[in-house]
C-alpha cells in the first residue's frame, strides 16, 4: 500500500488517542473556563485505579465492572478536587489557578509512581488486539474510535440539549450572571470537574492498551490533546474530536515527509501557537466575543 495512505491511516489511529484527550480538554474548558494542565496526569492516575481494580494483584474485577467503577471513582475524585482545592480560591487570579494545576500535575505524577511503581503495565482491552482490517488497523483501535464517537455524542447532547449542560456552560463563562438567573455555580463547577475527570478516565483506559501504562504516559499525549482541542475549537466537542484526528494525521505527514520524526513535538507546539494566533476559535468553535 502507498506510504501516504498508510501514514494517514496510522495517523487516524493515533489521532483517536488525541481526540479522546482533546474531548476531555474541551469538557473541562466548557465546565470551568480553564485548561487543566493536570488533566493528563489525572487521566493517567484514573487508569492506574482501573488497572488496580482489574489486576490479579489488585481486586481482579472483570473489565467492564472495573471500567464503570473507575469512572465513578474518577467522577467523585474530580468533584472533590473542585470542592476541596479550587472552591476556596475561586476568586483568586488566573495565576493562582495555573499554579494549582501545576501542583496537581506534580502530585499525581509523583503519587502514581509511588503507589504503582514505574515499570510499564499491560492494560487489558475488551476489544482485543486482533487485526480488524488486516495490516491496517486493530480491533482495539476500532473499538477506541467507536467509544470516542459515542462519548462525543453523549457530551454533545449533554451540552446542547440538557438544561444542566447549558447551565454548566453559563456557570463557567459568566459565573456572576449565572448566579443571578439561579444557577448553582459551585455545584456546576464540581459537576463539571467530575465529568471531565470521568471523560479523562475513559480516555486513559482507551489509550493505555496501546501505549502501556506508565506514570509518564500522558505528558506528550496531553500536548497533542491540547493541540487537537485548540485546532478544533475549545468550545466544540465535535471540533475537538476532528482536531484530534487532524493532529494525528498531520503529525505523521510532517514526521514522514517534511521535518522528520525528530521534530514531531515541535509540530504540535507550532500548531498550537499558529492556530491561537490566526484562528483562535479553531475550526468549529465559536468566536468568544468580549465586551470591553
Amino acid at each position: 500500500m502507498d506510504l501516504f495512505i498508510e501514514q494517514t491511516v496510522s495517523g487516524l489511529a493515533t489521532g483517536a488517542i488525541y481526540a479522546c484527550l482533546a474531548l476531555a480538554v474541551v469538557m473541562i474548558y466548557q465546565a470551568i473556563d480553564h485548561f487543566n494542565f493536570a488533566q493528563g496526569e489525572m487521566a493517567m492516575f484514573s487508569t492506574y485505579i482501573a488497572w488496580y481494580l482489574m489486576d490479579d494483584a489488585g481486586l481482579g474485577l472483570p473489565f467492564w465492572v472495573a471500567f464503570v467503577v473507575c469512572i465513578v471513582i474518577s467522577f467523585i475524585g474530580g468533584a472533590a478536587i473542585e470542592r476541596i482545592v479550587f472552591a476556596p480560591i475561586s476568586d483568586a487570579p488566573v495565576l493562582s489557578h495555573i499554579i494549582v494545576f501545576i501542583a496537581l500535575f506534580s502530585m499525581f505524577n509523583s503519587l502514581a509512581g509511588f503507589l504503582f511503581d514505574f515499570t510499564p503495565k499491560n492494560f487489558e482491552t475488551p476489544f482485543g488486539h486482533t487485526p480488524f482490517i488486516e495490516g491496517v488497523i486493530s480491533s482495539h483501535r476500532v473499538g477506541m474510535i467507536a467509544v470516542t464517537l459515542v462519548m462525543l455524542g453523549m457530551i454533545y447532547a449533554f451540552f446542547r440539549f440538557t438544561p444542566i449542560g447549558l447551565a454548566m456552560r453559563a456557570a463557567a463563562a459568566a459565573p456572576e450572571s449565572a448566579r443571578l438567573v439561579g444557577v448553582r455555580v459551585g455545584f456546576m463547577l464540581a459537576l463539571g470537574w467530575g465529568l471531565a475527570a470521568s471523560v479523562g478516565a475513559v480516555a486513559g483506559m482507551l489509550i493505555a492498551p496501546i501505549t502501556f501504562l506508565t506514570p509518564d504516559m500522558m505528558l506528550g499525549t496531553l500536548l497533542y490533546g491540547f493541540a487537537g482541542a485548540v485546532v478544533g475549537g475549545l468550545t466544540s466537542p465535535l471540533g475537538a474530536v476532528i482536531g484530534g484526528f487532524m493532529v494525528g494525521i498531520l503529525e505523521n505527514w510532517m514526521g514522514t515527509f517534511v521535518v522528520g520524526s525528530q521534530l514531531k513535538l515541535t509540530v504540535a507546539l507550532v500548531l498550537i501557537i499558529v492556530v491561537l494566533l490566526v484562528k483562535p476559535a479553531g475550526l468549529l468553535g465559536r468566536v468568544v466575543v468580549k465586551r470591553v
Partner: protein
Amino acid sequence: MKLFTTTMVSAVALTVAMGAAEARNAPGVTAKEIKIGNTNPYSGPAAAYSSIGKSVGACFDKFNGEGGVNGRQINFISVDDGYSPPRTVEQTRKLVEREKVAFVFQGLGTPTNSAVHTYLNKKKVPQLFVATGATKWGDPKNFPWTMGWQPNYQSEGVVYARYVLATKPDAKIGILYQNDDYGKDYVHGLENGLGDKADSMIVSRESFEVTDPTIDSQIVNIKNSGADTFYNVTTPKFAAQAIAKNFELTWAPLHLLNSVSNSIGSVVSKAGFEKGQGMISAAYLMDPTDPEWQTHDEYKAWNAWMDEYYPDGDKTDAFTAYGWAVCHTLVQALEQAGDDLSRENIMAQAANLKNFRAPMLLPGVTINTSATDFYPIEQWQLQRLKGEGWQRFGDIIDGSVGSGS
C-alpha cells in the same frame, strides 16, 4: 579535551589536602566502615531504573548482615538525582565533599554521569561501575577514575551486525531508536559492525522521543522502506509497543531486540508471547523470569536474597538481577583491595578483575579488567524467543569494541 592534561595538573593542588591528611585509606573508610555514594533517579522520568539502586542497597544489607566486607560494614548512601544532570552535580559534590564517601558507585544514566565525569576525575574519586552502557566510560587514558560495568551499547550493536552478516548477508535493515545517547550508541555499534556494507544494508533510520505517545508512524515508515530486518533499540515501554504494532501490521521481519528491553517479565509477556516469536536478542545476564533458570543455584540464591532483603522488589524486574551482580563485582574488588583501601588501590583492584564470575551472569560470561581495559563485561550470547522463554544459541561472543582506546 585538549585542556584536560593541564586540568589534571592543576587539580592536583586541590586534592592534596585530602590525600595527605588520612594516610593511606580513602576518606570514608574507617576500621569499621566503608562509605559509598550513589545517585539514582528515584523520582522523575527515569524512575523505573531506581530498582537498581534499591537492589544494590539490599545486596549490601545482606553482606553487612554476614559481617561486612573485609570486616567493614558498607555504608551505602544512595540519593535521588531525578535524572537531572545539574542535580547529579549537586548530589555528587555533596556526597564527596560533605559526606566524604570513599568513592561513588553505580551512578545511573549517561547525561547524569557525564555531568560529574570531569569533576570526579579531577578530584581523583573513583566513579566505579557506572550504570550506563555508553562507550565513553572505558577511557583509562583520559579518565583513569571512571569505569563502566555492563557491556557497552556499541558492543551489542556489533554482535547483531555480525549475526546479520553471517545469517542474512542481503538483509535490508530498518532501525528504530530512541533519540538520545543510548539509542545513537546502538546505531553506531551496528554501523561499525556492518562496516562497508552499512550504507547499503541500512534502509531506514527512525527515531522517537521518550515523550512520544506512540511509535506507530515510525514503524509504518520502516515497514514501507522495504526492510526485512528490524533493529529495535527501545526502552521497555516502546519495545512492547513496537512488538505489538508489528503484529498489528502483520509485519514479520527478523526482529533484533536490544537487551535493554528483553525482559520476559516486563516486556515480552506484556506485549504478548505470540507476537514476539522468533525475535533475536543478546544477553549477558540471566533473566529471572526465564523458566530455564528456575533450578539454577545462582537463581536460588538470588531468590532467597530477594525474599529476605528486598521483599518489596519486583521479581520480574531484570534490574534486580543486575543490581545483585554488580554489587558482587564491587565486593570482589574491595576484597581484593584487602586493608589498603586507598582510592588508588580501589581503582587499581577494580581494574584487576580476572575471570571473575558475578552471580546471575550467563554461564560462560566472566568479568575481566586491566589497567588498559576498563570494560568489565564484553561477552554476549544470542538468544531466540521460543514459546514463553528465550533459547540461547551459538557460542559466547566477544563483542569488545576498541578496549582501552
